[in-house]
């Protein structure tokens, strides 16, 4: 049965409006009736306005139904509709705190004062100019509750962002990103220009995020782009240049003499003769120097903004070129944007559009593959050089199998161009006969087109292992189109002076379509670096190309609404409901309901708090409870029993690929949140403290089934996960004089993640590499045998057994639960100093209390890999009875057991993420130069990191509890730039 839920149609509303201009006079007062001097009175939607006099009196020309907008320093903006009275006495409310701010939810704008939910706005101006191509990386340390692991320093790589802890085991834990009402993917930020962003809001609890229903379990990050500013067209040009350096590694490798001596003492695995050794001793190659260069960043943006009371626009063009410190890695980006809106008092239409084109050239990272060039830095022998005297690539002749990593890097190509277009159009209509009701429709699309080009020259190791052994060229192409349409009816009205009511109902449709194809051609015997080199495949030459493709789609239909009620501008209630239907789920569970309720109370405005005024500017309590869902991280048709393509003997057949599960349903996260916000001493000290408690249930879970069914597991829902934590945000202004100010802002988050329930059959321990999912423990808990050092008598590695006794027998039965790799404590601290237009901003981030399995270290401490480069740690390995050391003897017969705590390291770090010195030119100079503003700055990123972690970077790649190897760490970058407004 097909049910139709909602049928909205508003057709042809014609209005005739006639009015006459007259003069309105009045007086502006505060709540106590005291006159407010010099407030601004404007006609809404026009540029004409006047200022009241010192006694609060004003006089302005207006028509019936015109709206007067009264604003002023320290006042809550107020709108008054001109009625029949020609004299208006307007009581204003004093702005008591920063709570007059608003924040965007993506569907509407909310007053921070009344909000019951947990939403944090990120100060975009502080981070926009940081030279990082993928915007999500910049969120690190900016707001409590958001854990950002940068994971990679490769230009253009996305970060791993988790809001309030991981809420899913096999589903996605990424937040939902919304740009101007359109959902986008985190990995596409490298093709978006953050210079266009105007506001960034992080929605964390149910009351704030629940409006996103089934997609909001990971939190929501809402971004709006700049709107035009009323006034003459203003231009601004932002430019910066900079250089990046490779950070030093704490993991030290042997030099030539150390390595050769070590080899000689350990059976000469590479079989050198004494003569060869003598000649090799003259070579000392620093493979870091071979690979690394100074990375160059340059960024330009020209934007224009302007408009009048009817039409306003914002436009920008921008270019970014960032070269990585590893040769052959870079990101180039070209973007453009036009935001335009027009209309009158009743109807507004507009559009926000952007296009982007980026070219990402990269190298493999986060693996332990021998042909990955970044592993070559670690594994190449110091007594080889990348080139011979004639400049030809040299090959490592030893049995290590290590290809020349520089050749792999420079001869092969990995290029990923992306095209992106995001646009939305909207129309808002305020009913002329009843302006409390506004109708709005918003339609947006996000189009992404990716190309992948991986070229392996036939002379390289990667080319030789390709089919046919003569190189390969893989080209893949995919496109993703997502469009979303939202219609809403919004009602907002104040009754009887003290009842504020806002009601909105929405209906939304989202559809996503994905298509991809790829081919790989072989036999690149011709000198062309493209398709022209491919040899046509025959049944005998082994060069038959592979061609494949796929496509999928999903859709989401939603109906939702919310109600906000405020009493006396002190007591606020909020309730929301959303019903989502998703194409992804089983026929029995396609639809799900999500709801949320919240309340807040401005205690400081109560009469009984009168005595504290002046000291306590704000005290607000809020609480919320609600549900959100997750449908991300499963295949689009995971609920269906499907046949897919099977290939056999050159023919294709049909094969069952998934048994399906008609009962598959949403992951649901229930969150309770309480918070207190405060401001003291004229808001020189303020902040918020929040506690949250959330439980995600019905986790996506591959339930193990009897293999006799022909399947190992069936995707089902089972298990529960809890995240609870405390978030603290504080700001203080220790010094404020007319010429100098010092501001400190900091945030701290503690998140405790606990698995409450695993599979449906009482599973309590699911292993996941060196980590384990265990009931009562956080996700990604390391589970290993404790290493107890070395037996001084015979050099055997020693372990602790379950009882803590030392044994020389390795037994996985002795595994113990260690720490988790997800840092429980993290945050950021910003110190800002201002002195006569010079600003110094020092921004630290920290992440504490996690553990990382350092597989990168393991690979250079493994005595089985004597033929390739090793760590200097092995210089202190056990040699003779009585040696006291922590490195066991290098006897190949000692089976190398690596699942021990020997390679577990503390992943905590403090990092000086950004330091910026800037200077704003004084007004008189600006006037002489005939420009509006000029700001010059110098900034340094990641200049200093405090960590015990022995690798390039404690921030290991996305989602990992393991630093696999081939790490591309976060870079040290220094840039200088100028922002000119004219």
């Amino acid at each position, binding site marked *: 049965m097909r049910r139709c839920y909602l049928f909205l149609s508003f057709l042809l509303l014609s209005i005739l409006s006639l009015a006459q201009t007259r003069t309105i006079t009045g007086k502006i007062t505060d709540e106590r009736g005291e006159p407010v001097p010099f407030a601004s009175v404007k006609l809404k939607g026009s540029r004409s306005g006047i200022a009241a006099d010192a006694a609060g009196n004003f006089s302005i020309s207006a028509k019936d139904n015109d709206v007067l907008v009264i604003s002023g320093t320290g006042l809550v903006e107020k709108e008054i509709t001109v009625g029949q009275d020609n004299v208006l006495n307007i009581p204003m409310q004093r702005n008591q705190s920063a709570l007059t701010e608003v924040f965007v939810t993506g569907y509407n704008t909310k007053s921070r004062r009344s909000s019951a939910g947990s939403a944090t706005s990120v100060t975009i101006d502080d981070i926009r100019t940081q030279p990082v191509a993928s915007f999500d990386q910049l969120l690190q340390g900016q707001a409590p509750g958001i854990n950002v692991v940068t994971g990679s320093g490769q230009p253009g790589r996305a970060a791993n962002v988790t809001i309030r802890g991981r809420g899913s085991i096999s589903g996605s834990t990424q937040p939902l990103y919304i740009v101007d009402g359109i959902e986008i993917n985190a990995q596409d930020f490298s093709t978006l220009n953050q210079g266009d962003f105007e506001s960034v809001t992080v929605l964390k609890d149910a009351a704030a995020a629940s409006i996103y229903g089934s997609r909001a379990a990971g939190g929501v990050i809402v971004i709006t782009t700049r709107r035009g500013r009323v006034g003459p067209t203003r231009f601004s040009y932002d430019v910066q240049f900079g250089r990046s350096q490779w950070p030093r590694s704490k993991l030290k490798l042997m030099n030539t003499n150390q390595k050769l001596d070590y080899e000689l003492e350990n059976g000469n695995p590479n079989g050198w003769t004494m003569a060869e050794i003598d000649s090799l001793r003259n070579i000392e190659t620093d493979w870091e120097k071979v690979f690394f260069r100074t990375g160059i960043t340059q960024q330009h943006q020209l934007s224009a903004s302007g408009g009048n009371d009817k039409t306003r626009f914002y436009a920008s063009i921008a270019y970014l070129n960032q070269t990585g410190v590893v040769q052959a890695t870079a990101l180039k980006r070209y973007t453009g944007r036009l935001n335009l809106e027009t209309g009158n008092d009743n109807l507004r239409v507009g559009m926000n559009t952007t296009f982007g084109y980026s070219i990402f050239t990269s190298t493999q990272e986060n693996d332990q593959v021998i042909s990955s060039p970044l592993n070559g830095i670690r594994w190449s022998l110091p007594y080889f050089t990348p080139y011979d005297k004639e400049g030809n690539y040299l090959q490592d002749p030893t049995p290590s199998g290590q290809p020349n990593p520089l050749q792999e890097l420079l001869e092969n190509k990995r290029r990923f161009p992306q095209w992106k277009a995001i646009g939305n159009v909207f129309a808002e209509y305020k009913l002329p006969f009843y302006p409390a009701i506004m109708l709005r429709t918003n339609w947006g699309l996000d189009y992404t087109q990716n190309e992948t080009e991986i070229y392996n020259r036939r002379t390289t190791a990667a080319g030789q292992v390709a089919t046919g052994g003569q190189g390969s060229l893989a080209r893949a192409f995919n496109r993703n189109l997502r469009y979303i349409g939202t219609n809403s009816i919004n009602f907002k009205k104040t009754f009887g002076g003290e009842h504020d009511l806002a009601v909105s109902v929405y209906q939304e449709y989202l559809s996503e379509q994905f298509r991809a194809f790829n081919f790989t051609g072989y036999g690149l015997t011709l000198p062309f670096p493209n398709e022209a080199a491919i040899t046509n495949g025959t049944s005998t030459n082994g060069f038959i190309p592979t061609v494949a493709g796929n496509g999928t789609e999903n859709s989401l239909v939603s109906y939702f609404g919310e109600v906000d009620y405020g009493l006396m501008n002190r007591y606020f209630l909020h309730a929301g409901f959303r019903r989502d239907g998703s*194409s992804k789920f089983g026929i029995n569970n396609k639809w799900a309901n999500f709801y949320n309720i919240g309340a807040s109370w401005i205690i400081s405005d109560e009469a009984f708090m009168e005595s504290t005024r002046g000291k306590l500017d704000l005290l607000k309590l809020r609480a919320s409870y609600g549900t959100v869902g997750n449908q991300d991280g499963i295949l689009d048709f995971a609920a269906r029993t499907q046949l897919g393509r099977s290939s056999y003997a050159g023919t294709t057949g049909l094969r069952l690929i998934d048994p399906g599960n008609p009962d598959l349903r949403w992951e649901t996260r229930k969150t309770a949140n309480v918070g207190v916000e405060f401001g003291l001493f004229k808001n020189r000290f303020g902040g918020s403290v929040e506690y949250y408690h959330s439980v995600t249930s019905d986790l996506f879970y591959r339930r193990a089934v009897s293999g006799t069914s*022909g399947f190992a597991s069936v995707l089902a829902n089972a298990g529960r996960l809890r995240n609870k934590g405390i978030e603290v945000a504080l700001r203080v202004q220790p010094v404020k004089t007319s010429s100098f100010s010092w501001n400190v802002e900091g945030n701290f988050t503690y998140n405790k993640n606990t698995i409450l329930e695993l599979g449906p059959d009482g599973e309590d321990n699911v292993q996941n590499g060196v980590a384990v999912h265990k009931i009562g423990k956080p996700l990604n808990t390391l589970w290993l045998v404790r290493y107890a050092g070395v037996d001084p008598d015979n050099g055997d590695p020693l372990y602790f057994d379950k009882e803590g006794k030392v044994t020389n027998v390795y037994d996985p039965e002795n595994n113990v639960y260690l720490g988790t790799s997800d840092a429980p404590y993290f945050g950021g601290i910003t110190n800002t100093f201002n002195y006569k237009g010079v600003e110094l901003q020092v921004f630290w981030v920290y992440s504490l209390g996690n553990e990382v399995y350092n597989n990168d270290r393991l690979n250079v401490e493994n005595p089985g890999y004597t033929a390739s480069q090793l760590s200097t740690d092995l210089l202190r390995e056990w040699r003779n009875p009585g040696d006291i050391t922590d490195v066991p003897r290098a006897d190949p017969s000692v089976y190398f057991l690596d699942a021990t705590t020997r390679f577990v390291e503390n992943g905590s770090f403090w990092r000086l993420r950004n330091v910026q010195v800037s200077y704003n030119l004084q007004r008189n100079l600006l006037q002489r130069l005939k420009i509006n503003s000029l700001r010059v700055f110098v900034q340094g990123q990641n200049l200093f990191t405090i960590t015990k972690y022995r690798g390039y970077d404690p921030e290991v790649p996305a989602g990992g509890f393991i630093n696999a190897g081939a790490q591309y760490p976060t870079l040290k970058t220094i840039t200088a730039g100028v922002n000119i407004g004219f």
Partner: protein
Amino acid sequence: MKSINKLIALSFLISIVAACNKQVDLQPTDVVPIERVFTSVNDLEQGVIGVYGTWQARRPIYLSAVFSDEARQGVGAEYRGVGAILFRWEHTSDAQDFRDAEAGNAWTNMYQVIDRANRVLFYLDDVPATTAADQAQKSRIRGELLALRGFAHFELMRWYAQRYTPDALGIPYMETYAQDPGNFRPSRPVSSEVITKIERDLAEARSLIPTTFTDISRVTRNGVIAMQARVALYTNNWDSAVARATAVINAQPLTPRASYPALWTTRNLPNNQSTEVIWKLNINASNVGLAVGPLFQDANGAVQFSPSTKLLNSYDSVNDIRFPTFYRTSPRPLLAKYGVITSLPTTENFVYDIKVLRTSEMYLIRAEAYAETNRVALGAADLNALRAQRIAGYTPMNITDRQMLIDEIMLERYRELAFEGHRYFDLKRRNLPIQRLLADVQNNTALQTLAPTDPRYLLPIPQQEIFANPNITQNPGY
């Protein structure tokens, strides 16, 4: 300011959206819901190809080689530790090699084959076949599916049956697919029950597949009979073994010595009965992931397993055509049966068909059946006939002793069927220990002998199955 009369006419259409369930009722485009697929005989044909594509014939080859005395581990930096646990007999039921998707585990894969076959069989009867050609094709498809189902169950018996005797614990027999996988928890019946059902499936398949169907990448009638012969061998059903092997030998004679190397150097043999290959699983670029070669040697030439010294020493390296065909000794001992890399750069991609059933196995089955029934001369004749096609200038061996004949047959199986997934199962079948040379175990005497009484001698049912299905009895020792 002059007052202006304004006329504002607005046409505003917010939207007309009929939002119905149909918008969230999308149909996939790359995959199809099963209930809509099987409507014609051609669809059934696609389904049966899907079953062949599921069968991973390399699993028993890997298991047998690593676990028994066919292979030795790689050494030095190039050895990535592949199969070390299995080679060292240190496996538990949860060892990596017995987990899903690992090359050592037949449990999941064979039941996948069975399930996919059962799913097609489920829809087969309802598919209309109006023309005679359609009816013939439908009946043949049914025959192929039954043969695949029966033989897959037999493969599981080879791996997991505790002994090949009627009263020993067998494996669950799936006569139809599991409707609700989440709650499907069968237990293990005794072997005789399973064998009866295997024999029934194979017998029916034999009657359904016509002799005119000669595609050896599929199960032909010769293929079914060869499967029956192997089942007879494992169940000591000697007379049937002789009769079935004879039927195959007569239909598809041995490939002679001169053309024997081409059997192995040709990547994709023609899909007809011109060679002694009775059933092979085709490997080409699209399913290269199922190829055997990469199990033992990496694409960069790194050796994970090489032929054991014991195996190499068992041949007459000068006159036996199999020695240069199956192996390389320069620059070092390497397996060449499924492609080999001796130097870089290379064009070797290990794309070689996997031969599952060959006529030479039929000779050895018949010889063993003769020996077991005290027809030593007939058995010796079969053995000598096979050797004459493999060894240049071979003088027929005079064998009169039954045990000697059986020993010679075991030796010949070791040589002829090396790295074809037989050795471990042959030893288990005859209750013999695994014995390795000291040279093949890096002088570690602990890895030399594994007696049939050792708890590690039997293969475990994967632990995953025990967790998911408490009704399954684990093999002793795990």
